[in-house]
């Protein structure tokens, strides 16, 4: 064991500890308490943690038919929204990187949806999409198209909700990717230019690999967000019509606060955590396998 290693180890922990301590102090207790709740008999009607019931709450959740539907729906929903956000976000970020004029204006506009709380976003879109009086259907009708039942049709409600979500969250991704692109070094492009590489080749072999760490983090953060949020469902549809927009976090919310079963709500939440964690790990594993060691090195130490 070399002294350099121990020195680095010491410095590293010196940097990391203050943050980790703050996190532990503020999040540690709630996390542990919540975990205990998940294996306890705590409900609003039985306001005590004891007796501990082990896996019973998890079994109850797994056995309820709504759970599996909500789980698959959440997978689909996260996939659709995160893919949409990333593809559109990357496109916009690349275009932003190419222009200089009007850039502040574009940035200012792209920031707007991010500054709205999800509840407000839901209320606003309910107004825009109101089937009988809303402006969206009015414009459709003017254009000679049929009025749509945006949130009241079980076929359309899911896509409407995903669309609104993408509309709000895409700027998040644009911002991170734009900052990532701005921080990329110039030299590789100059070299590629000399070698006569096309724009597509430059994007594929330079931009994308070098952007990988930042892009991966943008995707992970959005994946976590999309898996957990229920605000839009809550304001837009309450999970309906039928069960067509019933996402898993809304399911957990209902268990805890409507069903008064804090223990089952916590259990459902931890299952959601397990799923998100598994997806995150799988995502990183594929990323690394795909990238291979050389690309990984390029990505990890861009210019270094």
């Amino acid at each position, binding site marked *: 064991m070399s002294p350099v290693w121990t020195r680095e180890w010491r410095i590293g922990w010196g940097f990391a500890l203050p943050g980790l301590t703050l996190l532990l102090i503020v999040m540690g207790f709630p996390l542990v308490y919540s975990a205990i709740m998940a294996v306890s008999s705590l409900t609003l009607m039985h306001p005590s943690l004891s007796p501990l019931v082990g896996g019973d709450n998890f079994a109850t959740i797994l056995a309820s038919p709504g759970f599996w539907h909500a789980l698959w729906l959440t997978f689909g929903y996260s996939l659709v929204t995160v893919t949409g956000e990333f593809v559109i976000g990357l496109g916009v970020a690349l275009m932003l990187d190419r222009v200089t004029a009007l850039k502040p204006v574009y940035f200012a506009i792209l920031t707007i949806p991010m500054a709205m709380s999800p509840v407000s976003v839901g209320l606003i879109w309910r107004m825009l999409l109101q089937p009988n*009086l809303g402006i969206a259907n009015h414009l459709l009708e003017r254009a000679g198209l049929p009025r749509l039942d945006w*949130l009241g049709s079980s076929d359309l409600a899911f896509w409407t909700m995903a669309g609104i979500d993408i509309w709000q969250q895409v700027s998040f991704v644009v911002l991170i990717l734009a900052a990532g692109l701005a921080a990329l070094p110039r030299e590789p492009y100059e070299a590629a230019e000399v070698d006569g590489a096309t724009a597509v080749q430059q994007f594929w072999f330079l931009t994308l690999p070098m952007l990988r760490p930042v892009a991966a983090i943008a995707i992970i953060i959005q994946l976590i967000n999309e898996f957990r949020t229920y605000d839009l469902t809550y304001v837009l549809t309450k*999970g309906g*019509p039928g069960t067509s927009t019933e996402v898993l976090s809304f399911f957990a919310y209902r268990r805890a606060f409507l069903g008064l079963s804090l223990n089952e709500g916590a259990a459902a939440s931890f299952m959601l955590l397990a799923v998100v964690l598994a997806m995150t790990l799988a995502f990183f594993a594929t990323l690394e396998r795909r990238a291979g060691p050389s690309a990984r090195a390029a990505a990890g130490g861009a210019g270094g």
Partner: protein
Amino acid sequence: MGLRSILCAGVGLAAMVALGTPALADPVTLRALMEDVPETQIIEAMLPEFQKETGITVEFEKLAYGDMHDKLVTQLTSASSAYNLLEVDFLWAGEFPAAGWLAELTPFVEKSKFDLSPFIPSMMDLVGRNKTGLYMIPMYNYSMGMIYRTDLLKDAKLAAAWKAAGKGALEPPKSLADYVTLSKFMKANAGVAGAAMQGQRGDPNSMEFSNYLFSSGGAYLDKDGKVALDSPQGKTALDLYVDNVKNGAQQGALSATLDDTLRLMCDGKAFSMITYWWMLPQVDDAKKCPAVAGKVALGVMPGGHGESGGWGWGIPKNTDAATQQAAWTFIQWVQSKKVAVARAMQGHAPVRSDVYSDKDVLAKYPDYATAEQVVASGEAFPVFPYSAQYEDVLGTQLSLAAGGQTDSAAALKAAASGLSDLLKKAK
């Protein structure tokens, strides 16, 4: 822009945050979590008067309905609560006493000789007493009735078409089946939605369907408390409900909430809506709804029984005796005849029969005579600890049936068994 200036700003900000911590509340300050509706504003305007009389300060914190429950639950599960006076919806009227959050009010009533007899029995049963005791005093009601367009009923062309269809005179419907037939007729002939329906899953569609159930003679529970939803009457009610969603209601009924139906009615784009009776003055307002003001009326739910609804006052157990006494003083004052009449003059929806029969009130609001019938004839959604969850269980089935994703028999069966499960869980 240096890092230092950012850090300096941070220090200043931290100081501001530290100073911003609110001072401790005065012991005789009552704090209640309220919904931001006219009822709350009417009382709020009268609070200085109460303070002058008693020296007790009352503060209202206002939130959206759905958020109130989440917030109250967190507060009431802890050892002491920030609220020492509670506004309790009837959907929580089973849960709060069962969780042991509410003080029993009988001792307060006896000591102060507070007369409960003027309170309308349907309201006392809903947001007053239950089998184990008296936990709330009714505050205001939101029982449901039918608001409809009188001008469309008087329209000669429509009357002729109705007669031609062999239905006789065009007048307010008497039964649920008549109502749905009329609703479909209006949609087909009058260029409006026959019914502005609030079909969003959960509270909106459960409340709305309850009117259909009660007015077709069905019930959630029988006299012995057994589940009776899956009955021929229940089937009739659900079939008519689904029929009206599909053929009488506005487009988008399955995502509509109260807000949507109110705007639709206000805009003159619907013939009727089944809703809280005190929506009438809001629609019948020349400033807010010029399209329909003077052309709307209130009726009891066709079939004779609508859904009851109401709010009550409660006193949390996790406060001290002096505070509880102050809370009782306030409840006594705000629900006294004198104050209730004063509130009613500004549009309060009374829970005391002597307010409905008050001359001044009736002179100002002639419709209160009908309103009293709506309130008195109302029946209640099952009040038990899981009422709110049951709304979601029932609402899901109603939404599936109305959206054509399941048939009404299966939906009714699932809704009934969901109710038995929750009742069992409550025991």
